[in-house]
């Protein structure tokens, strides 16, 4: 049985509001399924109490649900232990945690960090700041714009005895292509260097198995995959997390405090200072339950089919430049420009036509700079999108082109 986008879309109340919006900005955030929305509402209506604090029934129940959500995420990404799952505000927060705590513990002046120029700023700027703070060098793996690949040979030459961590995205938020994480992790581990994977854009489009990947850290956000905003995780191998000092301090993460000294709680609580976003974590658990009911092979297969359809339709337009090599496999995002039309102008007209796409540098200015553009238009797909949505985008782009060319 093929994937039925309409049946799937029916789970998302956003689309039943009759807004007549063609929503193609899923790499920014996805719409929310009714099960997630209901779970949040039900929790607040029935069980709300602060977690890990009370001996009263509600607090115990809320804690149970919160920890249950942690276990669901753990199993979803196949982590060995639930104490390797740290709840964060999202991907950015998770990367900042590592860029502070790991660097604090393991790096000294003269060491280096390796990343790529195709990162989202969230996986670039925290390392840049860490490098400034601790006098480290930030090294960047060259990206070949002719074939859209990272230069692995050059990468191997960048690694030396002072390389302390490699931080790399699994899927580019602009180009929608995957990076060779297996090769990078394998090589890094042969030198005992840990690797952080930014899975914000991969998590919604491919199965993530952290044990199989053997990644040391993985960051991701719930809201990119139908879950609530403001919640995500850092997965970290226990051996690293246990050795790292706390990131933020306050409630819950404390074991004992005296006037002179504080000892910290065990994992994962050591890294969860203050009241955690337990309600959204619990709702995210409901999102995971929902996703687990879907046939992921069908779902991801359909996404690939949609991307290919979009590429085929868009590339037939004579006035388009697409930033993609069709032979590569793509995950969600498709970036392009229209000849002689600024992306902001294009998006303004597309907005009038009720087509939601993203324009600008997509928080990936180093990539924009090597692509030689100030920004792109990005359409990004989810399994509730249809070929009809893509046809509307194509018609919209024709209107944009005609509008600005009549005006030349």
């Amino acid at each position, binding site marked *: 049985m093929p994937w039925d986008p309409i049946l799937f879309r029916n789970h998302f109340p956003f689309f039943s509001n009759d807004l007549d919006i063609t929503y193609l900005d899923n790499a920014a955030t996805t719409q929310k399924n009714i099960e997630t929305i209901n779970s949040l509402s039900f929790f607040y209506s029935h069980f709300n109490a602060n977690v890990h604090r009370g001996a009263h029934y509600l607090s115990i129940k809320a804690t149970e649900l919160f920890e249950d959500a942690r276990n669901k995420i753990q199993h979803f990404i196949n982590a060995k232990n639930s104490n390797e799952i740290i709840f964060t505000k999202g991907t950015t927060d998770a990367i900042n945690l590592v860029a502070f705590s790991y660097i604090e513990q393991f790096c000294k002046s003269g060491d280096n960090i390796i990343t790529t120029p195709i990162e989202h700023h969230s996986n670039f700027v925290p390392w840049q700041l860490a490098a400034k703070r601790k006098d480290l060098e930030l090294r960047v793996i060259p990206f070949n714009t002719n074939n859209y690949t990272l230069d692995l040979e050059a990468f191997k030459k960048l690694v030396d005895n002072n390389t302390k961590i490699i931080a790399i995205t699994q899927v580019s938020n602009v180009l929608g292509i995957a990076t060779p994480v297996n090769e990078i992790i394998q090589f890094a581990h042969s030198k005992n260097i840990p690797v952080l994977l930014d899975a914000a854009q991969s998590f919604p489009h491919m199965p993530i198995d952290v044990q199989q990947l053997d990644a040391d850290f993985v960051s991701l956000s719930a809201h990119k995959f139908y879950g609530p905003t403001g919640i995500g995780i850092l997965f970290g191998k226990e051996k690293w997390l246990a050795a790292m000092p706390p990131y933020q301090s306050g409630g819950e993460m404390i074991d004992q405090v005296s006037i002179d000294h504080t000892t910290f709680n065990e994992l994962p609580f050591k890294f969860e200072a203050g009241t955690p976003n337990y309600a959204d974590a619990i709702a995210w658990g409901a999102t995971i339950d929902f996703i687990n009911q879907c046939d992921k092979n069908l779902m991801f297969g359909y996404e690939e089919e949609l991307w290919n359809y979009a590429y085929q339709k868009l590339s037939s337009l004579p006035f388009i430049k697409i930033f993609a090599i069709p032979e590569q496999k793509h995950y969600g995002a498709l970036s392009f420009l229209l000849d002689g039309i600024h992306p902001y102008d294009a998006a303004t007209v597309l907005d009038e036509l009720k087509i939601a796409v993203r324009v600008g540098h997509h928080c990936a200015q180093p990539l924009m700079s090597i692509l030689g553009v100030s920004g792109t238009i990005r359409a990004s797909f989810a399994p509730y999108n249809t070929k009809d949505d893509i046809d509307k985008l194509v018609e919209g782009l024709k209107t944009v082109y005609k509008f*600005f060319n009549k005006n030349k």
Partner: protein
Amino acid sequence: MNNIELKAKQIEEEFSIFDDWMDRYNILIDKAKNLEPLDPKYKTPQYLISGCQSQLWLFCEQKNGRLFCKADGDAIITKGMAAIVLELVNGEPLDDIVKYNFEVFDKIGLHSHLSPTRSNGLRSLIKQIKLYAEAYLLKNKSDD
């Protein structure tokens, strides 16, 4: 009613004939094309007003207590919006500019382009023009 408000009224009338978005954007595009060019020497980071999605360059000077600005932009719709801003403020007294709040964009249905989330640089352009006007006012007072 001061001169800025009078000009705002005219712009309002110019737009009021049309309710179709295409026509409104056509006016903007015309205004962008008719905008007096900015000398390329001012298209440097010093004069850049950066939005996340589009960029503007702004040069301002005062003559006899009045402000004169020139601007350019990479996106034509943003540039057209900037042209309206310049049409309103150019040659006007500094204190009138400081006081004016650009509600004309509400009235011509283009207010959404000024929202902070648009990040096209227009809000910053207006803020920067007002800052220039305030700075020149201060300078003139201390020169007196």
